[in-house]
Each structure stands twice: as C-alpha cells, then as structure tokens.
C-alpha cells in the first residue's frame, strides 16, 4: 500500500517537472516538427530528471570534500582511516540499477515508435547519396538532383537539391548510397539514418509543420563532405499535390542548372 503510493508520487512529480519546468526549454535543440518529436523530447526529460539531481549530488560531494576537508595550517591530523561501508555501497549500487532500468523502459518504447515502418505510406521517395550530392526520386520517376559542383559557396542556400514532402502525411524514404557511406540528417527532424552501399535503409517521417528545413550529409564521405547539403521543403498536402502534378514523369530537375526547354 505504502509502496504503491510512493511510486505514484514519484510518477506524478516526474510528470509535473516534465510539463511545467522542462517543457519550456530545449537548450538550443530544434524540433517540434515531426510526430516522432514527442518521444525524443520525453526521453530528454527523463534523462534530465535523473541526470541533473545525480550530477548535482556527485558534484556537490566533490566540491564539498575539496573545500571542507582542505588541510589547514595547524590542523595536520591523520584522519580516520575508514575503508568501507557496506550499506552505503549497496545503496549506490542498487539505486543506479533501478534508474537505468526505468530509463531503458522509456527508451525501448520510444525506439519502437521512432523506428516503425508504415505499411502504406502516403509517399515513397528514394534518397540517393553520392560523392558529392543528393538525388531524390519520386514515385513517377521525377528526380531532384543537386551536386556540390553547382553550389556557389557554403554561405548560400541556392543551388541545393530540394526534397519536397507533404506535411501531415507519412513519407517513406528509401536510403541508397552510390559509393561510400553517407548519412541523411535533418537536424529539425531530430533524426538521421545512414546511407550504406549494399543496405537499403527505410525510414518514415510525418512532418507536422510545413516549412523549409536544412539538411546535411552527416558521415565523412570525402573531400567535399561539408558541402553535401540539401533542403527539405515540407508543404501542405494540397500544395504538394499541385507541385507533384506539375512534374513530368521521369523528368530531372538539377539544382543550379536551368531547365532545358
């Protein structure tokens, strides 16, 4: 009875801290744009809830010892030579084990949601990475391509390949590499996945918030790795359908290269 109440109290306070205190801060991390975001944020909050108090306790212990037990002139005594204390040692073995188990539980749940692959996505796009650029291929064969050759300089977002996606729908990306390992990384989606030659990774996104997001290759892939960037244009469904209808089957749009008429 008492134990149950104690657990409820713990859960309640964790949730309270989560909503009122931590819900307001991201420490610079972007996010809030996909449906997966909720799970990532929850894990961050769980981590803070455990890591901050433990960190403060340990840090406090260290600083306390440095200040309080400093040798002072005239007080050069030999301190009490205690060597062990089984109850304390047992406590700080078992409590962290319990905490780790709790964190793992939340993590396992989150991972199942984030990694899930839908059977019937709204759109399936092939994302192809190569040295040094991206090619996004749509179901009707239309390609959006961009290479570093056409990029102006690192400060410009012109001439980057654009991945068009509908908002609010499940978009499935098939990740393919032509040569070496690249990584598809969109910081605002709080997600990345490797493009490994020979392995076809599949990931699902459901981006709630329309907008233009910046993406980057996130695995060293050669000399121009830093320039292997792309943009993700997430549009409301109607707008996306309108755009898609305008792309002829099998056509290729190369960023930075004017279309041949």
């Amino acid at each position: 009875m008492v134990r149950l109440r104690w657990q409820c109290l713990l859960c309640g306070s964790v949730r309270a801290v989560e909503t009122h205190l931590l819900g307001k801060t991201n420490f610079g991390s972007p996010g809030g744009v996909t449906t997966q975001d909720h799970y990532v944020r929850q894990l961050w909050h769980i981590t803070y809830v455990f890591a901050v108090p433990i960190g403060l306790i340990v840090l406090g212990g260290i600083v306390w010892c440095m200040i309080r037990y400093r040798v002072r002139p005239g007080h050069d005594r030999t301190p009490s030579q205690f060597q062990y204390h089984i109850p304390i040692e047992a406590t700080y073995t078992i409590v962290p084990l319990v905490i780790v188990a709790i964190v793992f539980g939340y993590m396992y749940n989150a991972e199942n949601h984030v990694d899930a692959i839908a059977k019937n996505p709204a759109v399936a796009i092939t994302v192809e990475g190569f040295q040094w650029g991206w090619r996004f291929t749509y179901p009707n064969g239309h390609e959006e391509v961009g290479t570093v050759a056409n990029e102006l300089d690192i400060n410009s977002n012109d001439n980057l390949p654009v991945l068009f996606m509908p908002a609010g729908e499940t978009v499935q990306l098939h990740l393919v590499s032509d040569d070496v390992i690249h990584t598809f990384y969109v910081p605002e989606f709080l997600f990345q996945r490797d493009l490994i030659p020979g392995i076809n990774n599949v990931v699902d996104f459901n981006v709630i918030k329309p907008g233009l997001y910046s993406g980057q290759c996130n695995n060293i892939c050669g000399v121009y790795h830093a320039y292997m960037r792309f943009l993700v244009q997430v549009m409301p469904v109607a707008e996306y359908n309108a755009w898609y209808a305008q792309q002829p089957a099998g056509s290729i749009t190369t960023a930075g290269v004017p279309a041949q008429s």
Partner: protein
Amino acid sequence: MTLIQDRPEEHLVHEPVLMEIVPGPRPRGLVKYITSTDHKQIGLNYLVTSFIGFLFAGLLAEGIRTQLIVPNNHFVTESVYNQLFTMHGTIMLFVFLGPFAFAGLGNYLIPLMIGAPDMAFPRFNNLSYWLYLGGFLVMSCGFLTNNGAANFGWFGYAPLTEAIHSPGPGADMWIIGVALTGFSGIFTAVNIITTIFTLRAPGMVMFRMPVFVWNQLVTMFLLLLAFPVLTAAFALLWIDRHLDGHFYDPTHGGQPILWQNLFWFFGHPEVYILALPYFGIVTEVLATMSKKPVFGYKGMIGATLSIGALSMGVWAHHMYTTGAVLLPFFAALSLLIAVPTGIKFFNWIGTMWRGTITLNTAFLFCCGFLVMFLFGGITGIILAQPVLDFQLHNTYFIVAHFHYVMFGGSAFAGLGGIYYWYPKMTGRMMDERLGKLSFLVLLIGFNLCFFPQHDLGLRGMPRRIETYNAGMGWNFLNMISSIGAYIAGIGVLLTVINLFYSYRRGQIAGDNPWDGQTLEWACSSPPPDHNFEALPPIRSERPVWDANHPDQLTKVGH
C-alpha cells in the same frame, strides 16, 4: 641504499640476489635509450614520446579550430582539413592516451608497485617501444606524401578507405602505423599480465595490489581482446586495397558494415583502455593526498572488472544510425555501464570524505578529472539511448562528449599523474605555482572550448565539416570554442615549461614527498636498478603507509 625510516631492523631482509647474465658495463648516454631493458627507462621513453605525440596532435587541433573560428574560412583546404582531424584523432588515441598510460606509467610503475625487480620480459618490453615509435613515425609520415596523410576520420569507414576512394600511400601508412602501435600494445599487454601474475613480491596477494595495478590489468585484458580484432580488420582492408579483395566492397558482394562491426568491437574496448588506467591514477592520487585508504577497495576492483567486461559487449552503440544493429541489446548494456562507473565515483568521494586534503597540482588535476568525467559520463548516458543518438550522432555533441571524457577526463588525470610521479622519476618536485597556473588555464580553456560544442551539436552542427554556412546560428559558439582551444594550448605549454624547469631547478624530492602509501614510495627517487634493496612487510594494500604509520595500520581481512 633505500631504507624506510623507523622500521625495526629485523624486518629488513635483503632481496634475493639477481643474477646479471649479460656482462659489461651498464649502458650510458644515447645508447642507454636504445638498448636499455630497464622498465623505468623504457617507461620514460614511452612517456616522452607519447607526450610529444600529445603536443603534435594538439597542434593539429589548433589548426582545426583555427579553420572553424569563422564560417567560410580558408585557413586550410578541404583536403588538408580532413587530414588534420583524422591524424589528430589517430595520434591522440593511439600514440598519446593509450601508450602514455599503460606503456609509460604502466611500465614504470607496475613493477615498483608490486615489488618486482623488472617486467617479466625486459627485452620484449624494449621491442614494444620500438614498434610503437615506428608506428608513430610511419603514420605521421603520411603528411609528407603527395596525397597527404589519411583523411577519412580516425575510424576509417569502408568503403571510403577502399583504394578507389582513398588512393595514395597516406592511407596505407596510417594502416601500417596503427597496426604497429597495435602490436606494440599487444606485446606490452602480454608483458604486464605476466608480470602481475608471476612477479609479485612475497605477501603481495592479488587483493593487496594497488587499484592502479588492477586497473592496468583489466586494461591489458581488454587490449588482448581488442587489438587483434583491429589487426584482422586492417588485414582485410589491406587485401581490399592492394590484393584485389572485396571484403568491404559492396559492388562485389562485400559488406561495408563488416568493417564497422570489426572496428567498433575493437573501438569500444579501446576507449575504455584509454580511460581505465586513468581511473587508477585518480584513485592513487586521491587516496594519498587525502591521507586515507581507498574507500571500498573491493568495490572499486569489482567495478573495474564490470566496466571491463561490459565494455566488450557494447560496441554497436557507435553504429545506432546504421539501421543494422540490435538496438535494445546494446542500449541496455550501454546504460548498464553507468552503474559501475557510478560506484567508482562514489568510492572516490568516499576516499576524500573526512580526509586531510592537500590541494596541490596533482590533486587539482584529479578533481578536474572527477568533475569533467562526470559531465562526460552523463552525456554518455544520453548518447547510449538510440533515439537520442539519432538526433546527436556525428554532431558536435559527440565531439564534446568524447573530449570531456578523453581530455577533461583521461588527459587531466594523466597530467595529475605527471605531477604526482615526476618526483619519483626524476628526484625533483615540479613547481607548484606553475602547476596550479597550468591547471587553471587548462581548465578554463578546455571548458571554453568544449562546453559550447554541446550546444552546437544540439543545434545540428555535424562533425568533420571543414566549414559551415554563416546563417545556421553556429558562428558565435564556434568562435568561443576556438578561443578556448588557444587558451587550453597555453595551459599545456605551461606544464611543458614546468617539466623542463623542474628537471634542473626543482626542489629535491626524496623517497616519499607525498607520504605515499604504495610500494613505489619505498625506494629512492629515482629508483635504483632492479628497484628494491629491501621491501617493507606487505600486509595490506598500503605497505608503505603501514611502515610509516604503525599506529594507523590498514585493516585487513574484510
């Protein structure tokens, strides 16, 4: 030659006579550095060489930070930048952090701490040093080649490392250089394990060895398992590059992910190899400077064994984003490692608790270790969770995490070890004011450099990029980080100056300037050939403390 004061004469028994089989005078001068098989000389060779590696790789790091101080910078070209970070990582890990701890301090101190006259295989020890030096030189000579040194990151993922994508001898010299240091490490591991198992002094049972020696033992076990796997991975890579193999080549049925599995099976124990000996240093320094025994000695050893064991099963947490690993298994084991590490932290606090603490440079560096490794460990817990790793992998958050544990953690502890054992090795104390200044500058510089990188990673800045878009919101943090790097460089320089200054001008140290507790403080500074004229009785894990403080004997039998 070396007596411990106030010890009754009847406890003095002379060491058994060591038979000198090789005739002729002891080596002098330059020849001494080449041919000596004395573990102390070889240890010093390693310490000096690894520290030079530290300085060299540090210069490469300053180059990296200079390139990143403003967006769209042109301090170095893309190709050179890739070489800078690759060789910075490779040299820091394979030439500095590892060998400094297990080959430098390990070789020097392990025989002293267990009461042995030398290592079990002295000539083999010498060979290990030459292979190590050769490896360092070969990998660094990559810079002198036309295509430059290796430029694919210190973990060299295939297929980027295949001949078609990384032509030129720089990559081959990297492979051979790292393989040579690997063999050196394996030979040292054989030597150290044999020494610990067979050459302990009478009464020095395994559970009376200093925690430093236990940590080295576990490190050597990890090394024995990990480096052969790396060598195998390199062998397959060599066959791919030069003998028309296709192990990692997907166009002919090979598997790039095989390289990652092999490399990280080595790579994760490797980072624990780079951490565990430094835990040992911290334990020794904290205990001595607090004038207390190690708190929870058996718990410490158990925790070290657990960390060592678990580290062999978590390699794929470096591969979460490949989509090809069993996430729950590795997440569970990675989170579990936090538990024994936490035990060690609480035991360190317990060691300091209610002690009489001398806040000298060695102690300050070890406290710096405690604080910064704590932080690095917590960010490690964050990264152990796959879903959070999907956000943060290969960003500056990871860079911040591993620099907190490797630099703020291990390197700080290593510097603490230098300040602690320099008197034993040279007979002179290091200058305390210069040391404390070095600590302060290094602390400020390090944190200024790497703390902002957590936020850079949260904001999505990838690692290993030679420059970045000015509109991403990363400019200010990068600038602070680079300024911090320069300050940290000054901090290191102050210790280097201290090392040279104290060699000639340092106060004479004597046998036991710190009232040290373990056997290395029972002989002269520096110790004579074959270490011990006579040994104090070994009745606990603190034989020298017991001999010097007979009213405060260490309790045994618990």
